[in-house]
């Protein structure tokens, strides 16, 4: 019960990136997408392809929508590449909007006289649906969270994941994902496509760590993507605000990027060698 007030500047939060997962329009996975994001291969946009997670029991698999498929798919990619057991792996899920289609269907039904909404839709409408299905699919009993900071959701999730790694000293899975909203919500929240990115972060390097990342708050403006089509994705999809960071990881280059966080507050991420 001892305690002293320590007034100090924020020490940078840091972790090793053990693996990356990626799913987006024209970006099937990290292995094939990394050269595109790095600028070594041409970007050819095509609709995002989502598949139902085979690890879910059939009853659960039938009930999952696009958002859960996207989040679990991209999380599984990263965890498999990191060769970690998901059972005891803490997980942070971050998204601006949860499942837009389910939200639309519920609101449509509630605007009728009938108002009988589907129980499955209701329990799938929670912001932590992806986190819940992930834990069911992978048997993960460790803590999981579901975070939102609107357009800054990726940075907010990254801060939470880095904080967990720092304090617990254990690896953490970060999954950022966003699916498109149908009309009429789309006019109010124009997210054009599904995009997901996952990072497995750990305090120390493993057999195949990509880089060490170190984050700090900054006033500097956000970095953009040089490719206009990738920049359009970054600007339109909260989870794709991660693209400048993914680009440096894909190029396996040290450097520094600034990504979107909150009004008047952004996140600077330095990429260095993981030793």
């Amino acid at each position: 019960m001892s305690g002293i007030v320590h007034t100090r500047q924020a020490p940078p939060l840091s972790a090793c990136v053990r693996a990356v997962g990626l799913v987006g329009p024209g970006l099937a996975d990290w292995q094939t997408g990394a050269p595109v994001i790095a600028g070594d291969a041409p970007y050819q946009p095509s609709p995002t392809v989502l598949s139902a997670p085979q690890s879910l029991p059939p009853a659960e698999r039938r009930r999952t929508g696009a958002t859960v498929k996207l989040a679990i798919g991209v999380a599984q990619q990263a965890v498999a590449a990191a060769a970690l057991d998901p059972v005891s792996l803490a997980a942070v899920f971050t998204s601006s909007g949860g499942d837009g289609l389910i939200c639309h269907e519920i609101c449509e039904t509630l605007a009728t006289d009938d108002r009988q909404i589907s129980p499955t839709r209701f329990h799938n409408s929670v912001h932590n649906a992806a986190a819940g299905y992930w834990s069911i699919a992978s048997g993960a009993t460790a803590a999981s969270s579901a975070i939102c900071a609107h357009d800054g959701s990726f940075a907010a999730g990254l801060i939470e994941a880095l904080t967990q790694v720092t304090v617990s000293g254990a690896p953490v899975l970060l999954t950022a994902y966003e699916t498109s909203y149908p009309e009429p919500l789309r006019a109010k929240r124009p997210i054009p496509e599904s995009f997901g990115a996952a990072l497995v972060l750990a305090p120390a390097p493993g057999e195949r760590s990509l880089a060490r990342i170190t984050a700090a708050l900054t006033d500097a403006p956000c970095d953009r993507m040089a490719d206009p089509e990738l920049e359009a994705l970054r600007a339109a999809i909260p989870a794709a605000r991660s693209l400048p960071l993914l680009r440096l990881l894909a190029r396996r280059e040290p450097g520094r990027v600034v990504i979107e966080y909150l009004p008047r507050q952004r996140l600077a991420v330095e990429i260095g060698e993981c030793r």
Partner: protein
Amino acid sequence: MRPLVISRFTAVSCIGRGLGATAASLRAERSGLAPCTFETVRLETYVGEVPGVDEESLPRELERFDCRNNRLAHLGLHQDGFIEAVRESAGRFGPRRIGLILGTSTSGMLATEVAYRRRDPATGALPADFDYAATHNSYSLAAFARELLGLEGPASVISTACSSSAKAFAAAWRMIEAGWIDAAVVGGVDSLCLTTLYGFHSLQLLSPAPCRPFDAAREGISIGEAAAFALLERLPEQVESGSILLTGSGESSDAHHMSSPHPQGRGARQAMEQALSAAGLAPADIDYINLHGTGTPSNDAAEGCAVSGLFGPSARASSTKGATGHTLGAAGALEAVICAIALTQRLMPGSANTRELDPAIGFEYLRANRRDERFRRALSNSFGFGGSNCSLVLERSA
């Protein structure tokens, strides 16, 4: 974990505006549940509606955030000198050194539900005055509070259904421990909306009568609404006697089912064990457990199993949801504040509306209030959809 002091806390729910009214209701074992007359809802159920939310008005420069949830947040932040305490803290540490982590499950969803009734008949478009980002989006709550409080530090919303605002305490503790911030505003706000009322109705989990947690004849939940906030800081060198401390937190996942708990409460037990271990306590050190206790047959059975398995027959516990209703994403913060009041007053609150105890309960379930001058440590449980569990340990300093 290194404990934090909860230097200021407040709550608004159907049992009272602010600490004084809430404490008076708890002492009187009063329930705030009443037959549902909310909005256009036609369901045979009881709700814990906060009176006066519709009359609350936001400052003009923050009008874009106007919705029931942010009005309730506004009402809550204005109780018990909370805003002044946050500003004092921001003056001491700097506004960039104060974190803001809030929990909600539905945020301003009601605004979208109402907007869907006002779609353009020709195009189907939502009305021009509907502002998605400032009302419906989960982060709207923190965006609004950040502007109102003038904070410039890290901010986010945790939305893990009914464990949301308990987890906000745990996340804020980590951020302080990592040195990213010196203090944090945490809390939860959830307000009545049609999605949750008709949604829980579709799952057949709404009780037609006021909810009766751990009653042999319990029939389901009564939905409530609340705003509850706490200011967390590192311990000062000299802790004032009677201060309320956050000394432990534990989080886990059921990995079982989206809307039903693990039948033996496996995840619940894991979260409680972790919270005890973080606080450096043994089960026997906990004087009172504020249960999640929603009043559904399966939730209470699973939690009861976990509690009796870990704490044994001498544990004393109750759910306060018979008084407040289930305030969903705000429940974790509201019940942490109720524990703080309980510790301050050395009063373990009884379980309003519970009449015949479930004979399966394997510990001492408090139907009536219990005074205990040695009451020093409380554990608060919050469990949500998706199998998301969080337990907090609160202590009264000697």
